[in-house]
C-alpha cells in the first residue's frame, strides 16, 4: 500500500507539513517495500488551484492514504470522491521518521 505524507523538507528528520496543497514535499511511502520517495510539490507556488492540482498529482501516484495537518473543504470532497483515505495529524513537530514508525505499529 502506498501512503503520501506532506513534508516540510526532503529528509526523514523533516517535520510533517500542515498544508496539503502547498506543502514543500510529498513523501511517498510503500508499506510493503518500506521504500520512501521524496518529491517536491510541483504546485507549491501555483497561483491558484494548488489544492485540486495537488490532489491530481498525489492520486496519479496511486496512493491509498494521505497524512497531512489539514485538508481544505474542496480537497476533502475531491479525495472523498476518489476514495483516498485522509488522516489528519495536528502535531506539527512530528517527523516523517516518527510517522513512518507509527505506520509500522
Amino acid at each position: 500500500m502506498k501512503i503520501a505524507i506532506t513534508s516540510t523538507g526532503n529528509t526523514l528528520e523533516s517535520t510533517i507539513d500542515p498544508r496539503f496543497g502547498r506543502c514543500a514535499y510529498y513523501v511517498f511511502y510503500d508499506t510493503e517495500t518500506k521504500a520512501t520517495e521524496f518529491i517536491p510539490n510541483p504546485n507549491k507556488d501555483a497561483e491558484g488551484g494548488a489544492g485540486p492540482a495537488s490532489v491530481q498529482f498525489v492520486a496519479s501516484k496511486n496512493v491509498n492514504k494521505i497524512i497531512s495537518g489539514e485538508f481544505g473543504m474542496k480537497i476533502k470532497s475531491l479525495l472523498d470522491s476518489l476514495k483516498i483515505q485522509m488522516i489528519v495529524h495536528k502535531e506539527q513537530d512530528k517527523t516523517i521518521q516518527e510517522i513512518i514508525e507509527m505506520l509500522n505499529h
Partner: protein
Amino acid sequence: MSPRIKMLRKVLNPPQINGFNPYGSKLGIESRESVNLFYEEYEALRLCDYDGYNHQEASAMMSVSRPTFTRIYASALRKIAKAFVEGKQITIKGGKVYFDSDWYQCHQCRCYFNNPEKDKSIESCPLCGNHQIEKFEYDNSTDENEDELMTELCKCPNCGFEQEHQAKTPCKQLVCKKCHTTFQRNES
C-alpha cells in the same frame, strides 16, 4: 493513469430570482426573518419536482451519492415547509460541500481519519493501529462560498475535453484548450 477528478455538485441552472416574500400576515407583522435555501437544495427540488427526474437520476446529475441527495432534498422540503408555516421570507443563495464518508478519531494518537470505503467498517487507527477509535461528529456538510460552489464543467463538443466553466463568461464563447472548437455547457 490518473483518475479523473469529479466535481462535487453541478448546479446547472441558477435560480432566476433571489427569493420569495410572504404577504398578508394575519399576525399583522411581516416577519423579517428568512429561511435560506442553498443552491443545491433549489437544484434538487427543481430536478425532481419540476423536471420530473427520479432521485437516482437527479443525484447522478448533481454528482452526489444517493444518501447525500436524499439529505439535500429533505433539507429543501423542511426549509420550504418552515417558511410556509411560519410566514418567513425565502432567500436562495450559497451552498454547502457534502461528504459521503464518516470520520473517526483515534484515542491514542489523536489523529482524525475518514472511512472512504462505505461497505467496510473501520476497526483500528490507520496511523498507529490502536483499536480505541471513536466516530467523530465531523459536520459532514460545510458552508462554502458561492463561487466555488458554482463550479461547473464545460465539455468540448468536438473532442470531449472538459474544463471548468468560467463564471461570467458565456460557455458558448469558450474555446477548447485542446482543439480550439467553441465550447458548450456540459448538460449531462
